[in-house]
């Protein structure tokens, strides 16, 4: 187990190194010149050269990347070109909002997804089952900005139940979390349905029925815990999908998280922020996968650690 963990941790570190290299290289190749943007249009060639030197942007690529890595070891993500603030400070200020959104989204998708999956499995082959599965297909086929804008229009503009955007109260959280949750619930409901059907087919369920347990008890005590575990183990992998969605959902709802930070930085070519957010997201994804692997081990003891 220790061995397995050690190897997976090393692997994760290498993956993060790779992500940092590719992102850095991509941004290095960027045709637009950040120095010009910082210096402004009327800057003299001398000023531009000074700023370039100051930022170390006159150095060759490998030197720049090496410096970045060394700073990274001290958890220093560099300074934003345009906001003149440490990137780590900017991200740290925005991270709680994104984490809150993540908790909201995961709760929404679990409640919706598991609920739909369980009902569909129990009503298998009926109209209810079919409609729920069509709904889950629509959930995974709807782009998040469309879902977000529609939810905004119906529940914020027309009905006025929720604020149109922003951050602060629970009411602000509902629509963005639901937008992210609808996509996830589509996946979860289908996984939950097939997991539940698999479990209900097992011998021990027949035994439980045969020894006279009530239907509710068989479902709640015997079927559900077994069916839910493999599905819950997927939450880790979900984080990757979540990290993709935050840029969209945060900009639709004006949610002040790191997705919005990244989107603003991309528009202004503020490279250190783009780098920082990409790395933080990649960390979250790698960590999520690690958790998913470990959770799967616990969920199914038959899986042997390789």
């Amino acid at each position, binding site marked *: 187990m220790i061995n397995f963990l050690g190897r997976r941790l090393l*692997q994760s570190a*290498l*993956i*993060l190194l*790779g*992500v940092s290299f*590719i*992102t850095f290289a*991509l*941004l290095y*190749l*960027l*045709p637009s010149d950040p120095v010009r943007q910082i210096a402004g249009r009327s800057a003299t060639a001398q000023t531009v050269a000074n700023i370039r030197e100051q930022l170390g942007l006159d150095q060759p690529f490998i030197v720049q990347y090496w410096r970045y890595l060394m700073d990274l070891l001290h958890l220093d993500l560099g300074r934003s070109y345009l906001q003149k603030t440490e990137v780590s400070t900017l991200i740290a200020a925005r991270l709680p909002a994104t984490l809150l959104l993540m908790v909201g989204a995961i709760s929404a998708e679990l409640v919706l997804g598991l609920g739909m999956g369980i009902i569909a499995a129990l009503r298998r082959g009926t109209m209810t089952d079919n409609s729920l599965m*069509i709904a889950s*297909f*629509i959930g*995974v*086929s*709807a*782009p*998040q*900005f*469309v879902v977000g*804008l*529609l939810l905004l*229009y119906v529940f914020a*503009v027309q009905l006025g139940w929720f604020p149109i955007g922003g951050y602060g109260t629970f009411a602000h959280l509902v629509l963005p979390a639901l937008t992210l949750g609808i996509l996830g619930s589509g996946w979860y409901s289908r996984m939950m349905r*097939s997991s539940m059907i698999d479990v209900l087919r097992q011998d021990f369920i027949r035994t439980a029925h045969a020894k006279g347990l009530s239907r509710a008890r068989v479902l709640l005590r015997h079927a559900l815990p077994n069916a839910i575990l493999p599905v819950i183990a997927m939450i880790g992998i979900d984080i*990757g999908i979540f*990290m*993709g*969605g935050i*840029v*969209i959902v945060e*900009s639709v709802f004006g949610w002040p998280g790191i997705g919005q930070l*990244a*989107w603003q930085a*991309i*528009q202004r*070519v503020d490279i250190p922020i*783009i780098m920082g*957010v*990409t790395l933080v*997201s*990649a960390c979250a*994804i*790698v960590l999520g*996968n690690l958790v998913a692997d470990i959770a799967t081990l616990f969920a199914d003891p038959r899986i042997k650690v390789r």
Partner: protein
Amino acid sequence: MTAIEPATLRSAAPSVWTRLRRRKLALIGLALIVLTFFGAIFAPWLTPYEPNNQMFDGLTLQGAPMPPGAQFPLGTDLLGRDLLTRILYGARTSLIIGLVANGVALVIGTLIGITAGYFRGFVGSVLMRLTDLMMAFPALLLAICLAAIFQPSLWIVALVIATVNWVQTARVIYTETSSLSQREFIAAEKTLGAGHLRILFRHILPHLVPMIIVWGTLGISTTVLLEATLSYLGVGVQPPTPSWGNIIFENQTYFQAAPWLVFFPGLAIVILALAFNLVGDALRDVLDPTQRGQDQ
């Protein structure tokens, strides 16, 4: 031995169709896809308007977009262009990108997966580590960065989507290829002196065809969604070329007053992505033996 495999593939085709025909949802999906193609190809004959024509009578006296009505079935956008016309022409964008980007992604994914799965060893692990690395990339963020870096045109957007979208295919193909490579008939071929290329293309690839078809179909749905998302952010297909995503991008400031400008293009995106998902899912049940029995 070589003659047998193509023959079994051909004889499998009708039974696939019979099994697919029994699935109502797949047929609905197929009908929606055919309808979209029809709309995209025959757009000039289906509508009296031009997609980029800003019509004087396309705006109200106050200069606002026209709601759906007799003259403009789905209303007009904020520049007075007919929305239905733009959606029909936008279908071309979605389908071209869906097919091209997904085709490229499928080729990259298949090549990487098959090479890594067959050769294993050093080449295999380098390729699979690359795949792991791509899995850890926040794909949408990467796509947005790439699209913002290059001047986005239709083809650049397609390439950007392909670069982030080949990973899933590569993993599936890798798993399948590495299990196929262990099978006796491959060992027999090797003993008979067949070269790597011959084994890969004559013996392994034909076995992967069903899987490639399944993931190719499901992938179009992902591609359509990604294109719409990039265009919605303004880094995808650029106006005035209509795309379902950039119609929403252009009009979203008006969306509280004119919700149809978000609703109809949004509906078009959902329908097309849903159609490919429905067909792909049914194909997976029918074609992919590892998934069989899950849905009965």
